[in-house]
């Protein structure tokens, strides 16, 4: 007995036993799933590659970036709304944000600018590096000091004198220019110190509130609660002429969940209607509804196995698994078709045992290949699919026959349906068509842009653009990360990076915290250099020049004592630290540059991400420094999708070929069995290339399903072709293909790009596989091995 020939006595359990066994197993599975519900995560990261260390690391850096835990609230004034009205509303909104979700609102307790300025001036020795001191050395002469005195006199007597009094006394030589020049770009980073908790756009029409949020964006329940709380604040405080948009990971997740819910209502409705239409039109018997038990129970059992094996469960994997296991409907349809064409007391499972086992094992082997995928979600999906198909085979062979036993005579659609065998012409035509698609396929493009598979409502997209304009370059995408073992090590690395950017002459293209927040180690080195610079002779000289030049411009002799004190060897200013900045009311500086992962982020000041990435590429020579750009990560994800697709298609086909060889032995049969899945893949890649549609992650996820169904159709049709009885297989393939296309056609109409992508790819793949299986494969039926008489064939047609 071969693996694919039915056992001598195939047990056919009675309905009672079948019901009992199925109920026990299903209850146990349902209980197992129920107990695991709290382990289900909705994190999209499961569908991102984890085998490319660079992509995985970059994604971690994006997640840990200072902006990842922030919520941006954009208030947009109406055409007749005054700026003051908008400011009042924004101030009130920032003050009323619920502390439970928003522990900090940037700039709510505005720092005193004079205190901040003095804080840095008192720490001049910690901020000036060797380059600055070497420049000071060059201009250390009386004329230069005199020139500075004139400047100081003008500054103190001018309109801004009140703000610069400390600067004149603590820094009469204007040494602050060395670190202030590095901060020019910080002015664009308005979110650093917004006024009274919000930043106003240049035209005064938008106000931006930036708040740190304690809610994990992957926690959909808490995210919903947080967004509801914001809605309440909005309803209580905002007048109707001011529009509010919340932009954050939470808002995107919520928008996605909402559209998926709405899509599901439409898609499930349409799919169910389509399925009932197919069953009603072609199967007609109420007992045919038992077929639906196969996908339902195989999913239930497979999900239970998934819960038992994996510690963290993915809602996305379960969702896709449910779609994928829709293919097990085929097994039920084939058993039902066999039952329709079987005689009294004959077990229909015997008729379809061989093709069903061959199809099940081949599809399983194809899905096993997916366990090599670089995407964790796909590997989990592979496990779920293999378990589900195994369960479906068991249910189809041992449970369903007892439920769909024929109890009424009369020819059914399945028995009457026969494909139009038209000789070799269809196969030649189809082969040419596939060849054409194969030629087009290499031109397919791959997209790794996550924005192509997520739902980004126009309103959020527009608000995001406005926020980029208001908040400055930090929200613009390209970042350089300095990641050390702790914050101080990261800050040190960031200093080295800044020096590197300075040495390349591109530091002005970036916004870095280094000029104002160097690492403690760098500050220590700077202090040492400072003390070495101020030799006793130089100090004496300085004192003399300051007194002489100062007198000329009216300064008292002791006016510059605070600066002279800084040159003393015993002076050791307290280090500049993130905590110290918080103390003086400037937490924004650390908040905007240091991520939750303790890494320090430098932002590109320009809008051209590619150019910024190219400029900073040499920075990556520093160990621990990484350049992040949305474009770069998209490119790598695209490469990953391409690699995975080639893996699915290449290795999957090789394994399937091995199985087909085992089943059919004859090269022509193997070639023919291959045609439906090959048609599915080539139709997909060829049509996408012809219409210039880039293949994304979710298009690729539909490929295994199309291949699996294509293999099923090929195997069943070839077994049918070789068989000497009427098993109703073509009708089953027709119904299976039609119901799958209806279901995925409905999915293709979804508003969510991921669902729509999956629907389109399966629709194209299964459509091509069905056409091939029904119209191309049966080319020998009329001439070879046909047990039917020609007259009977004509009648059935």
């Amino acid at each position, binding site marked *: 007995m071969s693996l694919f020939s039915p056992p001598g006595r195939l047990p056919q359990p009675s309905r009672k036993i079948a019901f009992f066994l199925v109920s026990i197993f299903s209850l146990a599975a349902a209980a197992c799933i129920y107990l695991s519900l709290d382990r289900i995560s909705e994190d999209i990261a499961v569908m991102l590659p984890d085998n490319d260390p660079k992509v995985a690391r970059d994604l971690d850096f994006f997640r840990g970036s200072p902006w990842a835990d922030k919520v941006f609230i954009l208030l947009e004034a109406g055409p007749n709304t005054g700026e003051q009205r908008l400011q009042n509303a924004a101030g009130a909104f920032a003050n009323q944000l619920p502390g439970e979700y928003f522990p900090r609102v940037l700039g709510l307790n505005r720092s*005193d600018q004079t205190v901040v300025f003095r804080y840095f001036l008192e720490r001049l020795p910690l901020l000036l590096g060797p380059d600055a001191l070497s420049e000071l050395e060059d201009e250390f002469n009386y004329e230069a000091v005199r020139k500075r005195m004139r400047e100081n006199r*003008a500054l103190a*007597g001018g309109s*801004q*004198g009140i*703000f610069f009094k400390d600067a*004149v006394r603590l820094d009469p030589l204007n040494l602050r220019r060395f670190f202030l020049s590095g901060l020019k770009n910080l002015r664009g980073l308005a979110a650093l110190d917004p006024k009274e908790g919000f930043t106003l756009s*240049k035209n005064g029409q938008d106000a931006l509130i930036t708040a740190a949020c304690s809610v994990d964006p992957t926690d959909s329940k808490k995210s919903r609660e947080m967004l509801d709380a914001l809605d309440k604040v909005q309803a209580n405080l905002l007048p109707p002429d001011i529009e509010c948009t919340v932009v954050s990971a939470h808002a995107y997740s919520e928008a996605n969940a909402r559209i998926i819910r709405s899509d599901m209502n439409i898609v499930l409705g349409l799919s169910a209607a389509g399925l009932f239409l197919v069953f009603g039109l072609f199967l007609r018997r109420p007992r045919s509804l038992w077929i639906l038990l196969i996908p339902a129970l195989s999913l239930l059992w497979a999900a239970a196995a998934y819960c038992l094996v994996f510690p963290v469960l993915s809602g996305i994997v379960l969702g896709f698994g449910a779609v994928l296991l829709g293919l097990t409907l085929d097994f039920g349809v084939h058993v039902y078709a066999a039952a329709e064409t079987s005689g009294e007391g004959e077990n229909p499972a015997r008729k379809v045992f061989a093709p069903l086992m061959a199809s099940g094992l081949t599809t399983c082997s194809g899905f096993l290949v997916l366990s090599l995928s670089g995407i964790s979600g796909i590997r989990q999906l592979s496990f779920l699919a293999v378990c589900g198909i195994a369960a479906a085979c068991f249910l189809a062979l041992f449970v369903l026959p007892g439920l769909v036993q024929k109890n009424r005579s009369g020819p059914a659609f399945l028995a009457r349906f026969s494909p139009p065998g038209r000789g070799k012409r269809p196969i030649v035509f189809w082969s040419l068509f596939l060849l054409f698609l194969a030629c087009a396929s290499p031109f397919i493009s791959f997209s790794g842009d996550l924005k192509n598979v997520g739902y980004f409502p126009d309103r959020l997209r527009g608000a995001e653009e406005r926020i980029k304009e208001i908040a400055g370059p930090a929200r613009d995408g390209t970042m350089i990360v300095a990641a050390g073992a702790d914050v101080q090590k990261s800050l040190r690395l960031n200093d080295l990076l800044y020096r590197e950017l300075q040495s390349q002459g591109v530091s002005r293209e970036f916004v870095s915290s280094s000029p104002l927040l160097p690492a403690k180690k760098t500050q220590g080195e700077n202090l040492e250099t400072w003390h070495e610079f101020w030799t006793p002779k130089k100090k004496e000289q300085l004192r003399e020049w300051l007194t002489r030049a100062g007198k000329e411009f009216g*300064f008292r002799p002791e*006016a510059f004592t605070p600066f002279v004190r800084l040159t003393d060897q015993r002076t050791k200013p307290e280090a500049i630290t993130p905590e110290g900045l918080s103390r003086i009311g400037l937490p924004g500086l650390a908040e905007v540059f240091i991520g939750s992962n303790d890494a320090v982020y430098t932002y590109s000041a320009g809008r051209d991400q590619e150019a910024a990435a190219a400029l900073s590429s040499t920075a990556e020579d520093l160990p621990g420094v990484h350049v992040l750009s949305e474009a770069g990560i998209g490119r790598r994800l695209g490469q990953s999708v391409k690699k995975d697709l080639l893996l699915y298609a290449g290795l999957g086909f090789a394994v399937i070929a091995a199985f087909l060889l085992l089943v059919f032995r004859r090269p022509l049969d193997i070639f023919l069995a291959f045609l439906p899945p090959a048609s599915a893949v080539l139709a997909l890649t060829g049509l996408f290339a012809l219409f210039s549609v880039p293949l994304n992650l979710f298009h690729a996820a539909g490929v295994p399903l199309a291949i699996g169904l294509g293999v099923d159709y090929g195997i069943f049709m070839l077994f049918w072709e070789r068989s000497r009885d009427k098993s109703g297989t073509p009708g089953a393939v027709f119904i299976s293909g039609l119901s799958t296309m209806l279901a995925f056609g409905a999915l293709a109409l979804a508003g969510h790009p991921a669902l729509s992508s999956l629907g389109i790819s399966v629709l194209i793949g299964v459509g091509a596989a069905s056409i091939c299986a029904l119209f191309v494969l049966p080319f020998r039926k009329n001439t070879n091995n046909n047990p039917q008489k020609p007259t009977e064939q004509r009648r059935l047609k």
Partner: protein
Amino acid sequence: MKRLILVFLLLFPAAATGFPEEEILDSLQREAREIKTISSRFVQKKDLSMFENTLRSKGRFYFRDPDCLRWEYTAPYEQGFALCKKKGVKWDEISGEQKISTTGNPMWEILSEQLIAWSRLDMARLQKNYRIQVKKKDPLVLTLVPKAETMRNAISELVIRMSRQKGVIQEITFFEPDGDRTRIEFNSTQTNTSLPQGIFSGK
């Protein structure tokens, strides 16, 4: 009972005069509303502890309702700034002319906000930032104490002396916490006259 009334009057002196501050401030604002442009000369005297003597400067001031300013020193150093709709230029003998914007630049923002509020006698804004008291009625002298601690770190008190000319300031004195003082005396003030072209956009 008499003692109680005395305590009440001491605590709330305004109550004794029927809240004249509000009336005075309202009429001041009404007068200021009529003013669309201001052109004035000024003399600034700064008594700063780091200087031996008083620093004297003189210059010109222009304002156009609602938000255009020009503050320019003509001696001893030529420097100043002009701002209109939050954008403008500043200039001095060393750096020359430079573009400025009050957005994202707190120092310019505070400076321009205050100057505009005083020029327009925008009582709503001034009362939001200062506790205002009428020190003398004729000529009117107001004292302004900043409400915010951050502001009080720079200015402990402001004294504004109004001119007999309606809605026009004659003198402003800033008192700083460390004892430094700046007095600005305005003279030759003209209101609602036409101003030279381009004075709010360049040097």
